[in-house]
């Protein structure tokens, strides 16, 4: 949206009277673009911008307390400034917050690493041409198609005291109790469910690698491992990074799996989203919004750092294209920059 505006603004200064036609033509394009984009912007403003601002505002308020005289709750919210935020970082709640922060981070790192390894392995298997490939592809994707809550219930059934997991390992582990076992159960269930997602995106990446490259490598005498390291990995990297980024953002807000599989108020698996839920559940929307905002900032920072450090092509693409556009003037076809993004979103939606 911001790109056309400076261009239009600069024009008159550079060549004021002469090229009226061009200017009009330009202005028309800008206006048309603005008109065409306005529904999108309106929708984005409604579903993204408004809730964010509303939540930020909400996080500065606190609900009324119980009047000791009458026993009734005082009506109306009071403005408390940043009190909800400072409350998160002081006293008992601080311990709870940092524990949840650690759990969230731990789940994200562990799950995403495991899912990436398994997902890439799945993609390599699915990519091979063999009999029954369609069946294998479909079966690998089944876990991804199951809603998280349902898969959490399935795993809860497996992990109960007299469940399948204990029958297989031959001793009684109480999976839903505090400790490493509940953490492990969440990691297993999450990996099972979402490794196929990474597999799917990596598979899409693999299919874009031309066979000729591998043939050339074979002619040059490259081993299978060398082919994987020098050809497959670099060429599949853009798709893989996007998949990993999506999974990271997803796992940072993990909620339903530990909530259903292990249960609320369990220190071992309590995550940041669960803290926000807990506050909202007890009708303290201000503190809940404060937790949600802290989580939002954390997620944003992680996403930004990931993109900067590893150069995932999510917004990098658009950033690179902007200066190019300026050099070439208006000739760059509109939508090229957006094409990458559009492709990504489609991938994410699967």
């Amino acid at each position, binding site marked *: 949206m911001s790109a056309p505006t400076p261009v239009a603004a600069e024009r008159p200064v550079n060549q004021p009277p002469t090229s009226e036609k061009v200017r009009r033509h330009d202005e028309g394009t800008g206006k048309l673009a603005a008109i065409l984009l306005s529904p999108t912007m309106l929708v984005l403003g409604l579903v993204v911008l408004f809730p964010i601002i509303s939540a930020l505002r909400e996080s500065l308020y606190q609900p009324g307390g119980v009047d000791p005289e009458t026993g009734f709750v005082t009506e109306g919210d009071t403005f408390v400034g940043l009190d909800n935020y400072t409350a998160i970082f002081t006293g008992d709640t601080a311990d709870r917050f940092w524990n949840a922060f650690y759990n969230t981070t731990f789940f994200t790192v562990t799950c995403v690493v495991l899912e990436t390894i398994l997902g890439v392995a799945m993609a390599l298997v699915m990519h091979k041409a063999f009999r029954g490939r369609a069946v294998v592809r479909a079966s690998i994707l089944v876990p991804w198609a199951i809603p998280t809550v349902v898969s959490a219930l399935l795993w809860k059934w497996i992990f109960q005291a007299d469940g399948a997991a204990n029958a297989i390992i031959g001793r*009684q582990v*109480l999976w839903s109790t505090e400790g490493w076992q509940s953490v492990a159960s969440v990691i297993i269930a999450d990996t099972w469910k979402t490794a196929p997602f990474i597999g799917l995106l990596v598979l899409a990446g693999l299919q874009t690698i031309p066979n000729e490259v591998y043939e050339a490598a074979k002619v040059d005498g490259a081993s299978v491992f060398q082919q994987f390291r020098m050809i497959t990995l670099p060429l599949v990297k853009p798709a893989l990074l996007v998949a990993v980024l999506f999974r990271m953002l997803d796992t940072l807000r993990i909620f339903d799996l530990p909530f259903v599989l292990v*249960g609320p108020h369990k220190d071992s698996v309590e995550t940041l989203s669960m803290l926000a839920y807990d506050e909202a559940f007890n009708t303290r929307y*201000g503190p*809940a919004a404060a937790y949600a905002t802290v989580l939002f900032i954390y997620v944003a920072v992680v996403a930004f750092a990931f993109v900067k450090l590893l150069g995932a092509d999510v917004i990098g693409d658009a950033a690179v294209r902007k200066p190019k556009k300026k050099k070439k003037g208006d000739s760059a076809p509109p939508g090229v920059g957006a094409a990458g993004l559009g492709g990504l979103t489609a991938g994410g939606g699967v």
Partner: protein
Amino acid sequence: MAVASSLVLLASACGGDEEAGGGATTGGALEGRGPITFATGKDTSGFLPAQVSAWNSQHPEEKVTVVELPESADGQRQQMVQASQNKQDSFSVLNLDVVWTAEFAANRWVEEIPRDSFPSLSAAIPATIKTAEYRGKLYAVPITSDGGMLYYRKDLLTKAGVQPPATWAEMATACQKVQALPEGKGMGCYAGQFEKYEGLTVNFSEAINGAGGVVVGEDGKPNVDTPEALAGLEFLVNAFKSGAIPKAAITYKEEEGRRAFQDGKLLFHRQWPYQYALASKTDGSSKVVGKFAVAPLPGLNGPGVSTLGGHNYAISAFAKNKASAADFIKFMASEERQSANLQASSQAPAWASLYDDTALQAKFPYLTPLKASIEKAQPRPAVVKYGDVTAAIQEAAYDALTEKKQPKQALTDLQTKLSSLITQ
């Protein structure tokens, strides 16, 4: 993506704004006649439509529409809270869980009930009325009740030559005798609901009340750091330590425990009445058909004390047709409707005399011990911040049962926590 994560919470957060504008709702007269809605949890018995159509055929001008809320209690409460905060009249009559009374009353989301105009109140078991009160005033009408009972293996007790226990010590002795039998070898003695959820609050309160202690006293102040409460908690902790309660019971909710009892793995089981019919099913799902019976819960020095469950009907403060709503509640609270509901859904009624009906007793053999259980039962704390209070109780109980904290320490910490939460 990141944004989407917070969206769900934010959307629900918006509801809070509305509170600022509106004025207080005036209590008193229940006026207005016309169609009303009845918000209730998912009707698992399938009998509710029959009840409602009985009303609708008599009152064509004041038809009731049932709004089915989710099956989970949390989901029901969430929808009712949301509608109340937005001052919507979408739910006229609310089917409230007994522990929500204080929250709904203190927020003035439900109307005060004039006691004189509800005749069913005098016929209800007095304990059930306590669950509908907040600060001495009545805000709902008891419809169903619930109390814990001790399910025991009649066959094994008879074989070992022991009577159903009235105290925890008798229960332990009985269990040792049964375990000495070849059939009772390796059997678990006792279990209740010990997973970290509402059921733990119920079982913890029962242990404490059964030893003569309280969680929250009559004056509404927490008083849990007492020798009596400690004796109650230690009964549970020691039973876990000695193995009398199987280790797996720390993961038991109602259903896990029921499976264990039905598989013949438990001698004694603290459970709600609903298990009776399921454990008596002859389709092969239960191995204890005809082999079990129920008794009131045992306590430290005599019969124990159950925690009250059940549901009360309340009138939304934002309803248009409050007179119709009140009449509908009277209708549902009547002896005829409660009897019909008991027969069709086997939910324990609030109406006292139904428990003494011989025809009903023949159908539900547990009615007599259940009535004894409910009459002596204690409500859970009637506090506005019930969600926080029950979470604190669960935390303390779970820490003690899993030996993360000494029982004494857990109770001292709980007392501190409750004192900061209950400031009314």
